[in-house]
């Protein structure tokens, strides 16, 4: 049985990589899942991660089709540089900026989906029968210069050298253009540290450290308010979340007595000292 299976594998893929259909269906399926995920996820960051999944799977498919250089370039350029640039911009623009679901043009979504389905059907019908010849081996093209990378290099620096040079002009234009576009003109001089500090204290609000909860009190947990020398509660000593939850502790009469003793200079330490003197 094993021998017959092996024979079947040999017949189906003569001389080629035998695991190709398996990898194709796995990575192709994952690529389509990633694309659909990009389409349906509400948050832009999730979309970016789905696209990264698609691109990695496409890189595997490139490598599978004897294009190892493009597979590596796909991972480095697309998932490594382009998608991370997208993520950086998403951090600037706001990660949780979700899509608005309001239609600006009435019925646009329905028409778009219909047009997309028509496009899918048309492309599948068209592309499904486009190549009637069997796949040629790239081995000859690769081996002419000693390998895939060398073969592409020979084309880039030989037949397509003019386009290659134009590409370099395009890249430098794009870099300069992005710098010009993203540059922000400063309308006011940059504030120094001293100016910022002066502004902060000129505002008149209290800038010192806040009293810790539980000062002048018998407990030092955060839900115990600090007491002022006259026995009233210091509002700034209460943390906001504790107040919002309504779990601030009530002040005991014994705490107030303690405050009075300390504020009148009759602290326990002092009385102990007096006792010691005697």
């Amino acid at each position, binding site marked *: 049985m094993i021998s017959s299976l092996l024979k079947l594998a040999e017949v189906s*893929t003569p001389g*080629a990589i035998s695991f*190709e259909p398996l990898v*194709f269906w796995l990575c192709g399926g994952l690529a*389509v899942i990633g*694309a*659909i995920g*990009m*389409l349906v996820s509400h948050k*832009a960051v999730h*979309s*970016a991660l789905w696209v990264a999944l*698609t691109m990695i799977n496409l890189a595997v*498919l*490139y490598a599978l*089709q*004897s*294009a190892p*250089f493009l597979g590596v370039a*796909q991972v480095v*350029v697309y998932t490594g540089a*382009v998608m991370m*640039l*997208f993520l950086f*911009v*998403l951090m*600037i*623009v*706001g990660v949780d*900026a*979700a*899509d*608005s679901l309001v239609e*600006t043009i009435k019925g*646009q979504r329905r028409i*778009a989906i219909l047009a*997309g389905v028509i*496009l*899918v059907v048309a*492309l599948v019908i068209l592309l*499904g029968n486009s*190549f009637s*010849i069997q*796949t*040629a081996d*790239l081995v000859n*093209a*690769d081996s002419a210069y000693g390998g*895939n990378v060398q073969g*592409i290099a020979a084309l*880039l620096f030989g*037949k397509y050298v003019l386009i290659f040079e134009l*590409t370099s002009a*395009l*890249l430098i234009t*794009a870099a300069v*253009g*992005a710098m010009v*576009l*993203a540059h922000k003109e400063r309308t006011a001089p940059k504030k120094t540290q001293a100016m910022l500090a002066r502004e902060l204290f000129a505002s008149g609000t209290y800038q010192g450290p806040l009293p810790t909860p539980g000062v002048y009190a018998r407990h030092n947990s955060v839900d115990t308010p600090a007491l002022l020398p006259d026995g009233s509660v210091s509002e700034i000593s209460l943390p906001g979340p504790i107040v919002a939850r309504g779990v601030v502790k009530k002040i005991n009469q014994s705490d107030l007595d303690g405050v009075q003793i300390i504020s009148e200079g009759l602290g326990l330490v002092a009385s102990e000292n007096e006792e010691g003197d005697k």
Partner: protein
Amino acid sequence: MNPNAYLVLSGIIFSIGAIGVLLRRNAIVAFMSVELMLNAANLAFVTGSRVWGTLDGQTAAFFVMVVAAAEVVVGLAIIITIFRTRNSASVDEASLLRW
């Protein structure tokens, strides 16, 4: 393996990208959809290169990658500029060709 399968896959991914451009209102996601379409075109290039047994298709895919990288840099810079002035990355907001 039949190379048409790769072309069909590339067509499906291209169509999903096109639907994304039409449907999504967030400029960045619409831009990602364009990238997806470029990737699908690359897959078709690589498949063609394999079928014809020459490396020209792979070189074309390489050029597509370079142009896409340049395009992403400029496009994202434009999106950031629009976001700075309008405080929104929605394609519906920028409908006046100014500000």
